[in-house]
């Protein structure tokens, strides 16, 4: 059991480290880093499902009979590039947030939002 | 087991040894400049010897050519990286370690 499933459990451990960073850390860039750790662990999980014992890379050559499954490779290859594109969007949002709030910490940003709302309520002026 | 195979095995083992010494140096050396030196050993001696060892094992000339090209680019890029790092540290005023100083 352990011998045949160890790769899955190791990828889950990596995934959980990423998830922990996303949930516990307040810094937005650190959250994005954690998200990419999580993402890479998911990639590893997919690829490990496609692996066949004694297989080679799915490039057809003469004299080879066993190949690992190409489908997970295709899905993950595109997912990596999509992943960096979405990371860029996240980082662009972080830059804009920093420019308007002067902070990257989730708590401070929320705090400023709440105090802004309080002042507008008291003055009765819409911002 | 031909002579070529033995020779390539020796080269690969030597390359692996240099990679390990580079890693040890990275942990043990006292300051930034000496650590760059350790990393340089990993890149040039370690990777170079491993590539040479692999070159002896190739049977197709296309693969050998690719290994040679990789070696050429390693020879160009890794000293550049080490040099630029050291120069940047120098500009930034990172002090050089002298015998007797504390590790940093």
């Amino acid at each position: 059991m352990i011998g045949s499933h160890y790769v899955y459990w190791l990828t889950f451990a990596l995934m959980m480290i990423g998830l922990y960073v996303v949930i516990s850390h307040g810094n937005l860039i650190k959250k994005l880093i954690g998200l990419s750790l999580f993402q890479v662990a998911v990639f590893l999980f997919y690829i490990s499902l496609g692996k066949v014992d004694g297989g080679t890379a799915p490039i057809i050559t003469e004299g080879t009979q066993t190949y690992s499954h190409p489908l997970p490779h295709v899905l993950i290859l595109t997912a990596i590039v999509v992943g960096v594109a979405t990371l860029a969007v996240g980082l662009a949002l972080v830059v804009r947030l920093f420019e308007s709030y002067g902070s990257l910490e989730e708590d401070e940003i929320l705090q400023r939002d709440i105090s802004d709302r309080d002042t507008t309520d008291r003055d009765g002026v819409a911002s | 087991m031909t002579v070529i195979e033995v020779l390539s095995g020796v080269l690969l083992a030597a390359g692996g040894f240099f990679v390990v010494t580079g890693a040890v140096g990275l942990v043990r050396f006292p300051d930034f400049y000496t650590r760059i030196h350790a990393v340089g050993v990993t890149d040039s001696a370690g990777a170079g010897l491993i590539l040479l060892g692999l070159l002896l094992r190739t049977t197709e000339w296309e693969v050998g050519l690719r290994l040679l090209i990789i070696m050429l680019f390693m020879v160009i890029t890794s000293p550049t990286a080490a040099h630029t790092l050291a120069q940047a540290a120098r500009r930034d005023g990172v002090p050089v370690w002298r015998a007797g100083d504390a590790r940093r």
Partner: protein
Amino acid sequence: MTAFVLVNISLFAILGATALAITRMRALYEATMLTALFSLVTGSLFVLLDAVDVAFTEAAVGVGISTVLLLGVLSLTRSREAVTPRRRRLPAALVVLFTGGTLGYAAQDLPPFGSATTPVRDHPVTETYLYQSQQDMGIPNTVTSVLASYRGLDTLGELVVVFTAGVTVLLLLGPLTRRNRPVKRDLVLADYRVLRVVSGVLMPFILLFALYVLFHGDYGAGGGFQAGVIFASGFVLYGLVFGLDRVQQVLPQRVLWVLIPLGLLLFMGLGVATVLLGGSFLDYDTLRPDDPAAGQRLGILLVETAIGLTVATVMTSVFFSFTGRGASR
């Protein structure tokens, strides 16, 4: 305990140690460099798991582009993280333990690692992808044939996501209007003479390598996505060393704005062309009715070029946006 298992476990150990170090590190520059290391080690694991194409992409994206983007954002913002308060740690740990436990429990139902008789393996589509593809199009790299032909529509969707992400970054960070004032240069990498000369010499080789990867994708690891990322990293290197102005003289923003949708339009236009020729969407057989395999190869080449074009230009213009933002403030 074979050597394969041993190497596997040691690579996973390095990954785990790196990930733990990233969680503990409050200096974000260092965390970013460790993230690059994480990607590189993952790339080695991908090679071990026979996914050479994926390893290639991960190495180019994880070490090249995403590190540069993270560093660019750090230079625009703050690179020091606040201490994570204790009250945030406990709920996170609980969630992680619960999710991890559930996943680990569910993993018992997965087929054993490396098994040759998984449902995916036994499905008839595997036969098609691995062996039928040799008659259908005669391309040795099955990843390329699945990516560009069998699942071409899927890839088109992914490319649309990349395109949309690129446009979103442009909208968020500009530059939608060209500023004509001189840009302040605080990056003085071009003052390092060795670096300047070497990156100038390397630039054409990087672009040549990207073209090789693009057109060699049928026979070995490579293809449009990898080529696009390598192409972009060539321009990113040039921009990092010589500054945004110099690289925009070579590749003006206006040209990028034309090229970004061009790749996507080429891909979609090819699909429409195959429909007009009497086939289904992205069925390249119709390109050469007398020789369907040659038609498939032509279609795959065009699609890979389109992917490479859009990915390269999106990545380059995202980099321009981040660096341009820094220079304009």
